[in-house]
């Protein structure tokens, strides 16, 4: 396996090839040093087509497709704030008070694609796309029209993570049954207790 281009150069190449696409290099701190490219979902399909068709890259083989769940995170910090406090005798004094501020960063679902080239025998290029949030806007463009190999794997990410791939030819549950409602691979999934019998009426 050989890396084709350093991640920064790859980013520049894609941004030159696909006008309007914004690509961020996602650094990987582990010894594997497999850096990936975070692509904005709007241009996801165009970037994929560019990677497949570019004469130098020829990424004709989409090997691995998967979802990753990143939960909402909450960071707390203590901030000193000046407040006017009314005394018992009616006078107002300014005091420094410590306040705990919570900042919420919304979580997101991520689809990760590992691309290789069978013709040039190089790779991987790792693409990532992120949804806006984990509930209503969990939509990403499907790359199945570009690589058939993503068909079952995108269905699996839809089934287990709830990422809706727009443009997928046959987006149904694949491992869980059709009437199932939750997404079992999500980090906040709570399995039903063993003694609860779930009776399902035809969905």
């Amino acid at each position, binding site marked *: *396996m050989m890396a084709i281009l350093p991640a920064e150069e790859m980013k520049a190449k894609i941004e030159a090839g696909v006008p309007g696409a914004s690509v961020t290099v996602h650094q*990987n*701190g*582990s*010894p*594997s040093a*497999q850096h*990936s490219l975070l692509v904005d979902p709007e241009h996801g399909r165009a970037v994929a087509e560019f990677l497949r068709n570019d004469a130098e890259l020829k990424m*004709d*083989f*989409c*090997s*691995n497709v*998967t979802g*990753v769940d990143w939960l909402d995170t909450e960071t707390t910090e203590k901030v000193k704030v000046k407040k006017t406090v009314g005394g018992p005798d009616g006078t107002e004094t300014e005091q420094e008070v410590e306040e705990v501020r919570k900042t919420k960063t919304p979580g997101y679902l991520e689809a*990760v694609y*590992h691309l290789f080239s*069978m013709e040039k*025998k190089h790779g*991987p290029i*790792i693409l990532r796309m992120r949804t806006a949030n984990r509930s209503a806007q969990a939509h990403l463009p499907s790359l199945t029209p570009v*690589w*058939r*190999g*993503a*068909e*079952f*794997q995108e269905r699996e990410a839809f089934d*287990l993570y709830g990422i809706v791939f727009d443009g997928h*030819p*046959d987006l149904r549950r*694949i*491992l*869980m*049954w059709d009437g199932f409602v939750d997404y*079992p*691979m999500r980090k906040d999934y709570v399995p039903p207790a063993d003694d609860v019998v779930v009776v399902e009426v035809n969905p």
Partner: protein
Amino acid sequence: MTSLAELDAIAGPGEIMEVSMGPHHPSTHGVFRMDVRLEGERVVRLKPVFGYLHRNHEKIAENGAYLSAIPYTDRLDYLCSMTNNWAYCSAVEKLAGLQVPERAEYIRVIVSELTRFQNHAGLVGFLLQDMGASGTPLMYAFREREKVLDLFESLTGSRMMCNYMRFGGLRVDCSAAWLDEVRQLVTRLPRFIDEFENLLRANEILMARTQGVGVLPRELAISAGITGPMLRASGVNYDIRKVDQYGIYDRFEFRVPLGDHGDVYDRYMMRLLEMRETVKILEQALRDIPEGPIMDPKVRLRGLRPKVGEAYGRIESPKGELGFFLISDGTTSPYRYRVRPPTMINLTVLEDMCLNHNVADVVIILGSVDIVLGEIDR
């Protein structure tokens, strides 16, 4: 996807029959179901249905330590536990930057090639069984497979759930006597392959039923992410042992067999030819294996905490590209653990291969894909 109304338009209303093949059909090699629409004997639509053996392997592994996932990987493709171990260990080794001692690399190659041999022997046996050659070919194949499993048992204590490899090396070393037993077996293997090939290769019924059946064109195979012998039967020269040269595969001389037509016959022959190459690799590995440690003593097996990051490790398993994608958040269990199952992705083109063939051919085409449900459903 063709709708029912469209199918009715092809054949006239009421002439399409829906047959559910599986999950208990013997030809499905487990609990796999095909939703088949037929016009007479002709297949007009086929949708694979998975999930009967789904136990959310990935979630179980994400809840445990890195070490505790190894015995679980045995149960993915339960015929090839050694290669599953290797694929997972190679991903962890990439993630944590671990090195494997020389002797361990050799033993990994030996056990993995033995695995490839017994998998292919089993597959051709089952394929012929599916074709109606009841009993004999399968028993011939299983006689040989049995010898390999005996070797695995004496090395690891288990015939199929070997749980043998560790990131950074191996669980136990093999003895000189064990290596001699492998050498003896390897000298006998070419005779078995000759015998098996002569038995049926030019058989008229076999050729009539397999040649030109289930053709997979080269371009479709590449786009659909097909890997392993099935891809090479369609004429694409892509073997990860050659492309990535993972482990010590750059030290061995072997060829990658390629097919011309991409039909069931080519896929059948591909297994026989690969068995011969496997014997070559085994001979070289058994000749060159050095003495030495089998485990890097600095590796902490229990409580391994890789740095925050991710890694994708892949190997050429007997069925295709088996990959593991791991994300570490710095704790003792993986934040994300993903298996790239080769056989599930190889089934993407099942419908394309079966369309316009007879129902009886569906069984053979499925048999030539080489599926194991433990891996597909996870």
